[in-house]
């Protein structure tokens, strides 16, 4: 009893000392801790989110999904003369694009952000041993021409419609990083200051800089005195990583964190329930975006290679009801990989409707008949059994999966669920196309991103190409290949829109994939926090962190 009393006293004492947070401090909760902080070595959502507050990419897509300059002064284009077509030595067509770096941009230690950093970053990006995972971007740049400290011209080896986009090119400070890189490029990924001393002010030039990191727990950001833009409202921002979403919600309710970022936050149905109970204290903003939930069909499976079966599967599921009932209509039903909010979306392309009778008819046409047990079977009596996989432990997906399974079963299709941990599912089953039937997961992309790696027949993973490419369905259609090539190279917006329409129509006709819906992120903010504008794509809302403010 006495021990209990003592315990209670201690608890009370600790409760009293509760740390009163100052009003110019903001604590953000996300579900993932960035494993590295180097801007270019690998890509991870948590890292992108945190780095967006301490660095700026040259270009981004804004909340209206149009391309904008952040670190550059104005967007170069063929029309304004910032970009010029040129012919390359081998006769192909290239493009020279000139950017102007923000004149006042300085690293946290006072050094100007300059063309030296641009050239240095390009060197790291192309070096085979630097550890930079995706080098395509850097290899496409044939040469960089420097005009003084703040202006440079990139010579690219091809002309694509998004020639002006330079979002993936994230600068690293030459004056700090040259030494570790030049000493041993092979060791650079471990010797870089972003790993060795991530609180070095000179690594950052955004509105904030990182002043404390505790791995697996939190990152502390404070205002960067050398920031050239609008002075941010919050003096200090703490980003806490809490992986368990139930605990994340509890932290929000207990006031330990102020705001749960939608990019890496609560699941949608959790947020909906939260909204219902705590709508008086918090504002929940739902932003459907470019996270495309869908089901890949393995076209090497003889059953699924029959278009009638694929169409039947698609007609048999009530995607609208799922979206309405499970997600309160916040997640729009997808009709192809193109989001209705994207300017290339074509509303006239025929949409898949819920039509179980048609589904039954299609299956009958394909030779599947009801057996006495109510399950469908083929002519030689083999049952219509399809395996359905997704990532284990993702609750939303598992719920949707069970609904889909029951709707297909109602039709007589014996759908068997077999889920794997994400690590296994993405690490092998998908990439090596070891799923025999259906695989449900999501793509996240930028606006108007060309689904080349997903739909082009050259992108089917196999042992010869080292299992790269994302065409896990094994979809081959020369018409699609042509369209993908043509879209990339078409600079004229109107002509490109026509090509996109054809692509969407072809996608809906061939059904290599069953589209489900576009996932919505839920941004759970306290009523006093203003200025956060969700983007709904890969560029996180934290890129505009200086616009956030408090208004009680």
């Amino acid at each position, binding site marked *: 009893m006495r021990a209990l009393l003592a315990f209670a006293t201690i608890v009370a004492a600790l409760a009293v000392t509760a740390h009163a947070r100052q009003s110019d401090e903001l604590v953000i909760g996300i579900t993932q801790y960035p494993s590295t902080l180097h801007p270019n070595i690998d890509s991870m959502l948590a890292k992108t989110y945190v780095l967006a507050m301490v660095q700026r990419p040259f270009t981004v897509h804004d909340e209206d999904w149009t391309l904008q300059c952040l670190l550059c002064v104005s967007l170069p284009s063929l029309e304004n003369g910032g970009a010029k077509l040129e012919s390359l030595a081998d006769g192909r067509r290239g493009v020279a694009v000139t950017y102007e770096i923000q004149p006042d941009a300085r690293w946290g230690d006072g050094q100007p952000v300059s063309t030296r950093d641009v050239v240095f970053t390009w060197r790291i990006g192309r070096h085979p041993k630097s550890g930079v995972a995706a080098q395509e971007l850097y290899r496409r740049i044939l040469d960089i021409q420097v005009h003084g400290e703040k202006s440079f011209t990139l010579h690219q080896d091809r002309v694509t419609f998004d020639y002006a986009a330079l979002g993936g090119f994230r600068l690293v400070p030459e004056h700090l990083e040259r030494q570790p890189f030049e000493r041993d490029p092979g060791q650079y990924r471990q010797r870089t200051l972003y790993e060795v001393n991530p609180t070095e002010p000179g690594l950052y030039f955004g509105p904030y800089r990182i002043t404390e990191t505790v791995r697996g727990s939190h990152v502390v950001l404070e205002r960067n005195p050398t920031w050239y833009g609008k002075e941010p409202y919050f003096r200090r921002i703490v980003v806490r990583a809490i992986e368990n979403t*139930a605990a994340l919600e509890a932290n929000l309710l207990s006031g330990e964190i102020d705001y749960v970022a939608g990019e890496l936050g609560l699941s949608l149905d959790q947020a909906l329930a939260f909204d219902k109970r705590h709508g008086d204290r918090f504002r929940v903003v739902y932003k459907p975006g470019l996270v495309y939930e869908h089901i890949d069909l393995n076209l090497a499976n003889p059953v699924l290679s029959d278009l009638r079966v694929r169409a039947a599967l698609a007609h048999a599921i*009530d995607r609208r009801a799922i979206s309405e009932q499970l997600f309160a209509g916040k997640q729009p039903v997808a009709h192809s990989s193109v989001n209705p909010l994207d300017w290339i979306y074509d509303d006239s392309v025929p949409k898949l409707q819920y039509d179980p009778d048609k589904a039954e008819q299609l299956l009958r046409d394909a030779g599947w008949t009801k057996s006495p047990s109510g399950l469908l079977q083929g002519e030689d009596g083999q049952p219509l059994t399809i395996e359905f996989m997704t990532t*284990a*432990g993702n609750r939303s997906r598992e719920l949707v*999966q*069970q609904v889909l399974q029951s709707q297909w079963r109602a039709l007589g299709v014996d759908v*068997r669920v077999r889920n794997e941990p994400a690590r296994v599912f993405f690490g092998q089953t998908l990439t090596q196309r070891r799923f025999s039937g259906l695989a449900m997961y999501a793509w996240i992309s930028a606006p108007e991103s060309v689904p080349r790696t997903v739909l082009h027949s050259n992108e089917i993973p196999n042992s010869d190409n080292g299992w790269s490419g994302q065409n896990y369905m094994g979809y081959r259609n020369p018409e699609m290949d042509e369209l993908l090539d043509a879209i990339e190279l078409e600079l004229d917006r109107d002509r490109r829109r026509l090509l996109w329409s054809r692509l969407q129509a072809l996608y809906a006709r061939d059904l290599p994939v069953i589209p489900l819906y576009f996932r919505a992120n839920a941004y759970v903010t306290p009523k006093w926090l203003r200025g956060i504008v969700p983007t709904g794509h890969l560029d996180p809302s934290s890129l505009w962190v200086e616009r956030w403010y408090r208004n009680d």
Partner: protein
Amino acid sequence: MIVPTKAGKSIAMGVRRNRPAAIAALILVALAVACFAAPLISHLFGIDGGTVNLLARLEAPSFQHPLGTDELGRDLLIRLLEGGRVSLLTGAAGSCAAAFIGIILGIVSGYAGGRTDAALMRVTDGVIALPLLPLLIVLAAVDMTKVGLPEQFTTSESASLYRIILIIALFGWTTVARLVRAGALAVREREFVLAARALGSGPLRIMFRHVLPNVISPVIVATTLTAGNVILLESVLSFLGLGVQPPLASWGNMLSNAQELMWSAPALAMYPGTLIFLTVLAFNFLGDGLQQALDPRRRRIL
């Protein structure tokens, strides 16, 4: 075969005398009967636990759904009973499989003695030293077809269930093995064993007819306690996303799926949580009671 009968009688008597253990046994039997009668109950009430009804999500208890419905509109009572069947089955099968391996290794080790004994005990020490949870995680993610299990096992919807039972069997046998070995060492020089050997019984026969019945009591106790722990372990694995996989229900995955909705639909978490708690508690009390009944001198196996 006098010994087991005696043991059986003393179990029944001892448990009856120990009120908490008797209650625990009653609870477990009642739960097991209810869970395994789930198909019957669902047939009687005309509800199918697997039927998804998006228009009847999270409904309050009603005549049609005595405990209401879950987040997909399925009847919660039937789900709980079906989940209980899986959980109890995992507990029983896992602990029995572990006990089986433990008995074999323990008896061989204790009866054979010498180098076999030394080697087997070193293996046991090694397995005990392994950090369990991390290994479970590795094993839960390992591709079972690579280990040579038939395709049928790995692609069925119950694959996750078999996997958990297998993992428990692989790591949970050490306690039983040590208990059995100690018992076997003690009985192997006793008169009746020596007599049996003199009469020409083979070692196998001696081990299983004469040694085993005499060391079985602590094994029963340990297995009872393990069964409870296995149910708990399954819930932890579910929490990590590595437990029994949907559409199969288990109390563990129902509980960990309910945590996100714990504020808006607390019932979804309360029921499976309470059932796990109650079942594991009952297994512990039963094990404790059995221990007192079977082996009053040894009180600390736990």
